[in-house]
């Protein structure tokens, strides 16, 4: 029983960070109707920025959020503006060419990082990296708790933005009905640019938060891109609340898989759930709660 609770708790904690990755992806999917196959790679870039800040300035990874998020926001904005948006006017045989473009972007990001930092594993050792607090026999890893807390805070901020500000409402409006949004005086093109920037910044936040827990290497992006859309499909595409639920579900599922199946099959658990949801529940887990 104790093992179960322990597994469950660490699943939830990591799920909170996964939720951030999912939120970024959901925003992009909702507004642009594409899957962003560079999502994990953007996160990876943020991790390297955080790593660099730590190595050169000894900046704590959690403070590096303040650098990594804006940096990735800018990168995202540029990518959307100069590489993704222009494709809207291109007539190509495969309608998925924006998605294929994100594949190319992901490759380039990974390789540039490999060029600069080489393929070696890196990690950030902070004073609290392996410290834990105990509560009734269950251990809580400190960096995970801090990360979970920051993730919650950022999520709350995002919700405030989306629900209470005009720009945030415009983002939602554009996702729901692009034409009508234009008629309301919303510059939909600009909203897509902003959204990709925001989505990247959220991926960046997740990256910085994960750094004290994970090893870092250039190819870490790919698996996280997969996780990102597992989360979004689980949560029902374009649903922000769903992304958080999806993140937590994936976190718990992985953690359970690692404990009760094997470490190596941990990723397959996510994939299998993902496939089942994709096929049998096209609306995501959200469809279960809808009457």
């Amino acid at each position, binding site marked *: 029983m104790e093992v179960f609770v322990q597994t469950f708790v660490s699943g939830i904690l990591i799920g909170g960070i996964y939720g951030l990755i999912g939120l970024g992806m959901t925003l992009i999917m909702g507004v642009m109707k594409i899957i962003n196959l560079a999502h994990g790679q953007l996160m990876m870039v943020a991790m390297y920025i955080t790593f660099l800040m730590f190595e050169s300035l000894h900046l704590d990874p959690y403070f590096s959020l303040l650098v990594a998020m804006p940096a990735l926001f800018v990168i995202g904005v540029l990518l959307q503006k100069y590489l993704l948006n222009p494709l809207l006017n291109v007539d190509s045989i495969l309608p998925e060419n924006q998605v*294929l*473009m994100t594949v190319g972007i992901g490759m380039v990001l990974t390789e540039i990082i490999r060029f600069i930092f080489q393929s070696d594993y890196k990690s950030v050792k902070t004073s609290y990296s392996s410290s834990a607090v105990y509560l009734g026999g269950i251990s809580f890893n400190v960096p995970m708790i801090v990360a979970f807390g920051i993730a919650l805070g950022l999520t709350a901020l995002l919700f405030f933005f989306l629900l209470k500000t005009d720009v945030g409402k415009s983002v939602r409006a554009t996702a729901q009905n692009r034409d009508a949004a234009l008629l309301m005086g919303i510059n939909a093109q600009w909203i897509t640019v902003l959204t990709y920037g925001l989505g990247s910044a959220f991926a960046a936040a997740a990256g910085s938060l994960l750094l004290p827990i994970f090893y870092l290497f250039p190819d870490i992006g790919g698996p996280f891109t997969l996780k990102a859309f597992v989360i979004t499909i689980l949560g029902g595409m374009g649903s922000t609340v769903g992304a958080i639920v999806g993140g937590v579900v994936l976190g718990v599922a992985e953690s359970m898989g690692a404990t009760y199946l094997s470490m190596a099959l941990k990723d*397959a658990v996510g994939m299998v759930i993902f496939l089942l949801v994709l096929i049998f529940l096209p609306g995501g887990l959200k469809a279960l709660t809808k009457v």
Partner: protein
Amino acid sequence: MKSINWPTILVIAVLALFPAVVPSDYYRHIFIIALMWVVIGSAWNLLAGYTGQVSFGHAIFFGTGAYTAGLCVTKLEISAWWGMLLGGPVALVVGLLIGWICFRLRGPYFALATIAVGEIFRLIATVWRDFTEGMEGILIIQTFRSKIPYYYLALFLAALCITVIYLVTRSKWGFYFVAIREDQDAAESMGISAFRYKSLSLMISSFFTGLAGAFYMNYMGFIDPQVVFSLHYISIMAILVGIIGGVGTIWGPPVGAFIMVLLQETFRSSFFGLLPKWISEAHILVFGLLVIFVIRYMANGIIGDWSKIQRLWSKDRELLSASGRN
């Protein structure tokens, strides 16, 4: 095939004579790999370019074919060459099953599902040690020392694959595939069962990809799940070969395959040793940049946008008004 197609004959002649003219095993190896990619790229293109179903999971079929050949040795204790007979059909059956699951989904959702299935295959092949030997992979002893038999086998496979796909695209099936790609609803109302014909397209596609996988096992003598079931080295490479050459064309993927493999080799060898060593690390970077460039400026690939490229060379636009559809 009424008129004699001189360029095609020329290409076949050059490729047939190549090992005789170029005595280097190194170059023969590069060409063998390129020919193998001709098969995979063309097979992917039948499903994606002609039928409109973008697969991110062709490694499933490649890996299945490769492991079929490998398991012939480790489990059945027969020659891996039996894999050349079994690899295609086994991959085809796998394709049928995957189609049955994934064709309920359209467009990007289909693409997503294929990534997921691909990853599941890779993980299973990694974890199920008793059956696949896991990460250690399967090692066999190659039959031939010389590259020449492999070369001609690869050339034969590439020619077979292109011919079959050429014939398919000019038959009822081909028309149905393109109709589904252009508008699935219209196709259904024309009496076309989208599900059935997508499955047929996937079956042909997975058959040839599996064949290529079986060839790879025989030629390389070693496989492991991280390579043959790889999302990046196989599935995405297949996509790159297709889109760089040009989807929905017969000659796009072959051209794409040679460009990709030659480019890869050029960089990997630091321009054959002419440039500093660090260049060799840039080959995937160059792929990525190339993809971005092609999607941005040549949405239909090198063959699909051939007329556009020609126009850049000669300003004589009027001569080239007819677009290069083949």
